[in-house]
Structure formats: structure tokens, C-alpha cells
């Protein structure tokens, strides 16, 4: 055998091993109901497990976009977008929409380290592109299972690409469900579980939740949902959240857990839920936003008869979802007041007026909470010091998308810009040194 043949044989064997490894990982992921995304990635709206928590990361407290302090890089984004960035496999993925009717859909990938644009794919919407001026067609945050990117839009167009920007499939959900959509806009972000991407599409017309095969886009399951407008996002949860693998769905009149493989309901509670802020699961406890935040225990199996453990009226979130970490619940109310509650009891621990209107869900980074209001002011708050505001960093741009945290960096976007905030700067305390 000559050297070329040896080389080809060697490459072939390597490819086979690689494929086998990928297949094994995918199979393992499917069986376990989780995705192969790395723990350090930020694969969905609110990150892995839908908790918006990055306890091991260190992000600067202070940054400045005007003089570049602690700004690792800045990238331009076309059109508009209120979706959040995700970080996956060394890439930062962002969606945007443009054009006079915002029927142009964009999916962009940037190198996580350098900010260089790696690829940019464009599509035309196949569904409705009417929405409130606050929103954009690019409102849902994309999701990834570590191998595929699932970009979803208010027009209910769902696009699957691999990490190199190769198109794998696209579904125009309105082509199959013509009455799907509302003219305020659809904002529910997809999630990923059991080898499928899961979308929650609720409107007064067609209304459903569905799972589509990550590789082929084939429907795995579809369940009817209440025919009312709904903007909250589903969450894929598992052992990391302290419970069985499940998908959490909420509507105005109830919250439920579903088997990620079949969509079958595992648990349902009639409950007045928020229509924008999304539920969060931490430590086997389900925190449901509504007029109050209400907590259910779902740790030791679930039963329809389970009563809530507590319901706290002072914990009343506006559009941002609650964040639960270190046995504390954090919500931002409509007056721009950050409220911290005890996760065991719902009892308020402290309040801190931040100011402004908030759409983005805050992110807990170590001992800090980073809260970005719609005017683009990022408040860095000390969670352990009664919410003391440590810094106000101004992006000076409208910002509605929730930020991502990965590999000691914060990724935030306005309509036109994507920033990576990371540097030696002023380090924050590791979580292990948090005051008891």
C-alpha cells in the first residue's frame, strides 16, 4: 500500500471513528433527553436548563462601549432584532430581520473569540410579519443542540442549519397552519430536547406545541394548546434542574410538564400564568410567573393534586422571566424594581430600584446579577449585598434581547450591534466565596 492509499485509509478510519463518536453522543443525548452542547455554552434562551445562570463564569463589572473598556469585540448586525444571542461550539449565533415589512430573515454566526463573521444566511418569511413596533420578526432567541442551530422567527419560520451554516431543513409553520400568528408578534423561543427542537406556537387562530426532528425536521409530536395569544417560552429540563426530563409549557390558564419524547402530559396545574415571562425550574422546584410568582415542588414525582408550596404577590415579574439561584428568586417588576425573594418561602429579602423598562431576562453571573433595561443600561447588581448596584454600563442603544454568558464573557445585542464583554477588568467573586 502506498503512502497516499495509507493516508486515505487513515482518513477514512478517522472519519468513521468521528461519525461513530458523533452518533454515539447523539444517541446518548437522545436517550438521556439532553443535548450534547458543552456546559460552557449558552445554547438557548436563558441558557441550558432555562435558568439564566452562569455561576462559574467571571464577567467584568464595568465596561464602556464608547472607549472599548472590557469590550472584547463588537460586530454589526443587519436589520433589527430583539432575540438574544446564543453561544455554541465557539460560535455566537444571532438572528435579525430586515426590509420594509421585515420579511427578510437573517441568521449570522460570529467567531466567539475574534468576533469575525463566519457566515450569514438569509431567508424570506413564509408567515405573517405583522407585529408591535417594539418587537421584530427576529424576536425568538435561537436554540442549539450543539450540532444544529434552530432559528425561529415571529413569522413562525423555523430554520435548521449546522454550525457551518449549511441548511438542513426549513419549516414554514404557517404554510401548514395558516391561522397561526398574532399581530402583536410571536416571541416564544424554541428549546431542544430528546433530539428534537420544540416550539410553542399559541395564538387565537391555530395553536399548538410541536417537536421536530433535529436532523430532518420531521414532526415528532404535536399537541393542541389553548387558543389565546401567548409569548412565554418552553423550557427543556432534566436532572440538572432537579427533576425528570420534561418540557415545561405555560399558558394563561395553566402550566404543564410534558414528556420530551412523546409530548404526553406528565403533570398539569390550572393556574393563572404570565403570558410573557417564562417559568423556571431549579432544584426540583417549579417557579411560575403570573400576578404572583408561585412555587410548586416537582422533585419527588409529580401529581395533579400537588398544591403550590407558596405564592408571593410582591414577586410580580413584568416581561423578564424570574431567575432562581442560591435559593433566591429574582424578578424585575413593571416599575423597574428588582425584587429578591426566598426560594423556600417566597418571602421578600430586598428590593432595589433599577429604573427603566425591562424586556431582557437578567443573568446571574457568580455573585452578580446583570440586568439590562430597554434603553440599554446594564445594571450590575451584587446579589448578596441587598442588590447594591455596582455599576451602570450604558450600551446607548435599545436592547430587548436577553444576554448570554459563556466562557467568562457576556454577549449582548442591540438591534444593530453585538458585543462581547470580557477582559481582565474588575473580576467578580467566584460563587464559592459567596457570603453565607
Amino acid at each position, binding site marked *: 500500500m502506498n503512502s497516499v492509499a495509507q493516508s486515505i485509509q487513515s482518513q477514512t478510519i478517522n472519519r468513521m471513528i468521528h461519525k461513530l463518536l458523533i452518533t454515539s453522543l447523539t444517541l446518548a443525548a437522545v436517550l438521556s433527553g439532553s443535548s450534547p452542547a458543552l456546559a460552557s455554552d449558552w445554547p438557548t434562551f436563558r441558557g441550558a436548563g432555562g435558568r439564566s445562570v452562569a455561576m462559574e463564569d467571571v464577567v467584568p463589572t464595568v465596561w464602556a462601549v464608547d472607549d472599548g473598556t472590557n469590550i472584547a469585540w463588537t460586530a454589526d448586525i443587519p436589520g433589527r432584532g430583539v432575540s438574544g444571542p446564543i453561544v455554541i461550539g465557539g460560535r455566537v449565533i444571532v438572528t435579525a430581520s430586515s426590509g*420594509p*415589512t421585515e420579511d427578510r430573515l437573517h441568521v449570522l454566526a460570529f467567531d466567539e473569540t475574534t468576533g469575525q463573521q463566519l457566515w*450569514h*444566511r*438569509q431567508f*424570506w418569511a413564509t408567515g405573517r410579519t405583522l407585529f408591535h413596533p417594539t418587537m421584530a420578526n427576529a424576536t425568538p432567541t435561537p436554540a442549539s443542540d450543539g450540532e444544529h442551530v434552530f432559528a425561529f422567527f415571529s413569522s413562525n419560520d423555523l430554520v435548521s442549519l449546522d454550525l457551518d451554516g449549511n441548511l438542513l*431543513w426549513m419549516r414554514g409553520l404557517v404554510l401548514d397552519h395558516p*391561522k397561526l400568528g398574532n399581530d402583536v408578534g410571536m416571541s416564544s423561543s424554541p428549546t431542544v430536547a430528546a433530539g428534537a427542537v420544540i416550539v410553542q406556537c399559541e395564538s387565537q387562530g391555530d395553536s399548538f406545541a410541536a417537536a421536530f426532528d433535529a436532523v430532518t*425536521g420531521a414532526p415528532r409530536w404535536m399537541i393542541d394548546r389553548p387558543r389565546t395569544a401567548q409569548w412565554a417560552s418552553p423550557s427543556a429540563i432534566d436532572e440538572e434542574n432537579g427533576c425528570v426530563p420534561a418540557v415545561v409549557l405555560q399558558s394563561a390558564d395553566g402550566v404543564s410538564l410534558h414528556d420530551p419524547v412523546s409530548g404526553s402530559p406528565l403533570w398539569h396545574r390550572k393556574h393563572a400564568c404570565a403570558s410573557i415571562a417564562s417559568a423556571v425550574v431549579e432544584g426540583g422546584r417549579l417557579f411560575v410567573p403570573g400576578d404572583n410568582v408561585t412555587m410548586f415542588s416537582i422533585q419527588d414525582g409529580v401529581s395533579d393534586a400537588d398544591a403550590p408550596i407558596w405564592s408571593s404577590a410582591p414577586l410580580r415579574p413584568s416581561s423578564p422571566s424570574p431567575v432562581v439561584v442560591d435559593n433566591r428568586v429574582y424578578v424585575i417588576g413593571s416599575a423597574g424594581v428588582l425584587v429578591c425573594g426566598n426560594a423556600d418561602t417566597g418571602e421578600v429579602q430586598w428590593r432595589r430600584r433599577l429604573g427603566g423598562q425591562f424586556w431582557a431576562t437578567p443573568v446571574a453571573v457568580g455573585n452578580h446579577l446583570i440586568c439590562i433595561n430597554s434603553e440599554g443600561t446594564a445594571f450590575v447588581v451584587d446579589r448578596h449585598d441587598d442588590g447594591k448596584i455596582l455599576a451602570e454600563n450604558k450600551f446607548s442603544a435599545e436592547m430587548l434581547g436577553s444576554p448570554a454568558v459563556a466562557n467568562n464573557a457576556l454577549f449582548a445585542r442591540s438591534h444593530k450591534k453585538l458585543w462581547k464583554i470580557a477582559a481582565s477588568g474588575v473580576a467578580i467573586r467566584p460563587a464559592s466565596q459567596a457570603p453565607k
Partner: protein
Amino acid sequence: MEKCHWNAGLTIAMLIGVALSAQSVDAADLSPAISEVRSVTGQVVPAAQSAWKTLATANVDQLTAILSGMKDASPLAENWLRSACDAVVERHLRSGGKLPVDTLRTFVLDSSQSPRARRSAYEWLVLAEPETPNMLLPELLNDPSLELRYDAVEYLLKQVTEAPSDDQKAVLLEQALHASRQFKQIQGISEQLKKLNRQADLTHEFGCVTEWNTVGPFPIADGNGVSTLYPPEQSLDLAATYPGKDGEMAWKEAQADGELGQLDFCKTLGKDATGVMYAVAKFNAAKPQSAQIRYETNNGTKLWLNGKLVAENEVFHAGGDWDQYVVPIQLIDGENTIKIKVCQTKRTEDWAMVWHFRLRVCDELGGAIHSEPNN
């Protein structure tokens, strides 16, 4: 020396021949991939993914061949083809290559091609030659591509500020108004005309139907009224009367004289009124043709054309925007009957105490189709 010339010429001719031959072979090779991609549905087969990769790795000279595949393609297939072209252009530019501007320009000006394909070619042309808008947009004011048309109107509007007199400005604005198919753009043009003391009749410009006969309100006994069959739904007789809460109800002429052809039931019934209203309009078409009814309302509706149900939207107070519902229709030659049912349920919120609709007839680009005058 002469032989040398001959050799050089032959070599060049051979190279061109080889290049052309390679290009045509490659282009032919793309046909199966284009065909495969054109047949995609939401659920894909590996062959489609493989075909997309074939197209995405094509030579930049084959860009317009791929774009040609968008002609009469489904919306999903258009997206598959466009995104493959994105990959081709991206890779080519990254390697320092130049885009085939002459081919792209010819493609943009070929109105037999898919509007979206032409728009794509235009965008890459602008990337390669930033002066392209100055060269092409004046020719694209009435283009079938809504995106090219929008930019052409914007280009024309820039000239308004440079026009030496108000009269000349008004001429340009009128031209822009008639060419535009975009609601906000048209509103902006109208505002500019107002500043010149010229009135734009947008209700007419959009093709809003304003002459109606209405009857109601029929009380809602159960649900929201959308699925309940009331007498005007079962048979249409404008001379008929129906029992109502306050006596017999008869069809009445109604003028949609609100802003942009809005017919506001609250104006006559009060803002907290509820029930079901029916409105009927006659529309004289000059010829049988494909068209659209576009309408906007905050209320639940059913819509019929010539007795056939063409739309039903059990949606209440969920935004409501211009051209909220787009309904493809087929107009018959002569008189057509449009009937709409508009439902309002009991509401306590002030913002939900609205009961109205706007309706227009237009072509697929949104250009008004007006009812012909009665003979």
C-alpha cells in the same frame, strides 16, 4: 512570430472553449440539485440536504443558474436556493474573488425571472458596485419585486428634495405614490404632499371599498358569534328585515368614511355595543381575474365572495394592522358581491371597545383594483 501569434490565439480560444465547456457542464450538473431542492417540503430527505451542499459549493459563475431555479418555486424552495447562493457568494468573496457583475446586472433586468431571485442578484451587485442603485433603480419603479420597487421609490423620493419647485416636487411625489406598494412609505409620501398643500386620496389609492349596506347588530347568545349562523349568512336579501333587540332591522346604506376607508360600527351603535354586524358591497370587475381582498379589523370575522366563504378569523383584539388578512380571490367578470360578518363580544377594557373594519381589493402586489362604475 506569426506562428507564435497563432499559437497564443489558439491557446486563448482553447482556454475560453474549455472554460465555457466546463461552465456549461457544471451548469448542467446543477440541474438535478436545483430540481431536488425545488421539490423540498418542510420535512426533508438527505438528498435535499446533499443537493443544497452541491449548490452551496458551486462556482460563482453558476450563481445566476441557481437563481434561475427560483422561478415559480415554492416559498420554501426559494429559501433553500437563496441560502445556497449566500454560501457561494460568501466563499467567493472570502477568497478574494470578484462577483460576475455583468451577469448579475443582466439577471436583475430580466423581469421574467423570479422577483426574489432578481432582488438577490441586485443585492450582490450593490455589494460589488456601490453605484448600482443610481444606475438601476430609476428603471425599477414599477418592478414586480416589491423590494426593488420599494428601493426605487425611496430613490425617487430623494430627488424630491432637489426638485426646484413645489410643482415639480408634487409631480415626483405623485409618481412615487402611484408606484409604491408599501403602506408606511405611502403614508410618508402623503405627508409630504400635504406639506405642499396637495391632498392624496389614500382611500382611493389603496382601493378601499367604501360603499356598503349593513344590517345588525344581531345579539350574541353563545360564544363569540363567529360560528353562529344568522339569517344574512343563510341567504342574502337586501330587502329583508330581521327581528332585533329594538325592533325590526333592515339593511341600510353605509359609507366607510373613517380614516382610510374604515367602517366604524361604534360610531352609530356606541362604543360599548356588542353583537354581529353584516356588511355587503357590490364590486364590478372589468374582467375575470385573480385578485386579493385584504382587510383589517380587531373583531372576529367571516368573509364571503359571491356567496363562497373565503376567510374566517376567530381572532379578537390581537393587534390589527393594515392588510392584516390577505385573502386570495377570483373575481368574475361584472358584478361581484363581497359580504363580511364582523363580531364584537362584551368587553370591559377601553382598548377593546372597538368594532370596525377596513377592506380593499387589490392585485397580488397590493396595487388597487377599483370597482368599475355601473353602466
